């Protein structure tokens, strides 16, 4: 029942995407039997849309992989190690999250223009390869893991790399799974940075393309809803793929060692 309430707006979105192109959103139209796949047809047969889809998947994929690796490394470092300036880097990292994008976008845009990265995939990837939220998440998770295993492994003479990747990483699967989902989701729906940092259709991403369905005086609802419904699919796939790692969790087996 709660589920129904939560899902209804999405169901509405789904329903509207099937409306014939030129209808209003009144109840008569919604409840009528008209199910027109015109909007979907337009989108899926559009080469441009396929390209934007691909761009979003490409950029999203690279950013997620990068984040899984780098956030894990950095998060572990912040949790377990002491080093000079650790607190500075940690709090400045959280601090970055606290400044609205509009304020820092101009210098960032200028930088991209000067380095020639403007309007390329790199502009969409490089600044976002390591996300403070991800580091923070890993750090919190690692904090809650008992240190006993690492100590034992160190006594056994294992190198830090082995400890990190062979022992801690498997234990962190739930956190990394959440990180993957979260990173992909944020990146997939990200609008402002891709909009400002790119112009050509070759590197356009899906949210920017969907924004173009909001016209000057009218919103092209069927196309916009169809596009958004389709856009949900990859995220759901990522979610379904990673969620089993959240559920498996660590069990007694690891501790017994």
């Amino acid at each position, binding site marked *: 029942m709660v*589920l129904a309430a*939560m899902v209804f*707006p*999405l169901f*509405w*979105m789904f329903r509207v995407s099937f409306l014939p192109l030129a209808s209003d959103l*009144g109840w008569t139209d919604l409840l009528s039997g008209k199910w027109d796949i015109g909007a979907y047809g337009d989108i899926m047969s559009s080469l441009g849309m396929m390209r934007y889809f691909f761009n979003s998947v490409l950029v999203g994929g690279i950013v997620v992989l990068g984040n899984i690796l780098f956030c894990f*490394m*950095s998060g*572990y*470092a*912040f949790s377990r*190690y*002491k*080093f*000079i300036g650790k607190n500075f*880097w940690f709090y400045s*990292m*959280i*601090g*970055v999250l*606290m*400044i*609205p994008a*509009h*304020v*820092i*976008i101009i*210098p*960032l845009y200028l*930088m991209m223009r000067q380095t020639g990265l403007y309007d390329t995939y790199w502009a969409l990837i*490089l*600044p976002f*390869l*390591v996300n403070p939220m991800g*580091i923070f*998440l890993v750090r919190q*998770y690692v904090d*809650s893991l008992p240190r006993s295993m690492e100590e034992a492994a160190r006594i056994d003479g294992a190198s*830090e790399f082995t400890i*990190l990747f062979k022992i801690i990483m498997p234990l962190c699967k*739930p956190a990394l*799974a*959440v990180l993957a989902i*979260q990173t992909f*989701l944020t990146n*997939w*729906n990200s*609008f402002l940075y891709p909009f400002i940092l790119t112009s050509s259709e070759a590197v356009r991403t899906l*949210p920017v393309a*969907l924004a173009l369905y909001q016209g000057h005086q009218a919103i092209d609802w069927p196309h916009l809803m169809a596009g*958004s419904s389709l856009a*949900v699919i990859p*995220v*759901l796939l990522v*979610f379904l793929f990673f*969620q089993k790692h959240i559920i498996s*969790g*660590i069990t*007694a087996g690891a501790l017994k060692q």
Partner: protein
Amino acid sequence: MKGRSSLAYFFASPWIATFGIFWLFPLIFSLYLGFTDYRLLRPEFNWIGLDNFTRLLGDAAFLESLINTFIFVFGTIPLTTVIALLLALLIERGFPGRTLFRAGYFMPSVTSLVVVGLIFSHLFSRGGYIFLLARICGFDPPEYGFLLSSRTALYSIMAMDIWMSAGYYMLLFLAGLKAIPIELYEAAASSGAGKIRQFFHITLPLLKPVALFIIVINTIKSFQIFIEIFVMTRGRYGTSTAVYFIYETGLNRFEFGYASAAAYILFIIIALFSLVQFWLFRKGQIT
């Protein structure tokens, strides 16, 4: 352990590099702008000291946006966190079809904020589902729609935000719950502790790190709420929030120095809140 220190730097290097290259300069530059009278499109930078800040403290529009932001933060975070925890506990119990429920609760956070904002703009309007539902349930919704009345606009957006975020944080709580070793529960049960005691003495304390993460991140995000306001009401009817004020002042009125100063006042507020939260949830020993 000197060797470990350099290794630590190596591990932390991706972040340090990314930050140093992309984010450090913009942050410092925008802080500098807060002390100037910089206007967009006019490349003049005159240092005016604290003038922007003092002006902000007397700016009714800015103060109103701060109040709205506080209402938003205090109104959504407790509810979102509690609902997320309850949902996670429910799901963890395990029952048939729970994968569907998990996906279902998570779904709202999957669609882009812009699209959700547009959809809800319509649902909240005179011809929309929520309006109809309110009528059916006997409430008296505002004549022109929820978003066109200063009584209800902000709260409607808050409700939408809780709807969107609960599922997402539920996921995080789930991950945290799974990290608690089953032995602890078994040990407690065998020594006679009931479910409630187990919850308060095992579950909650061990969820602290995850809870801290959730609350801090939610706080930071909620203080910066912008897109929903932009898409749904453009700050009218009492929905102007801090970041919306910054956007409007900086990018529409071109008073970018002034807006940067406002951004840093917001930053200080958020940072204070986060520090308090970090202190409240400070690491305890896991015995």
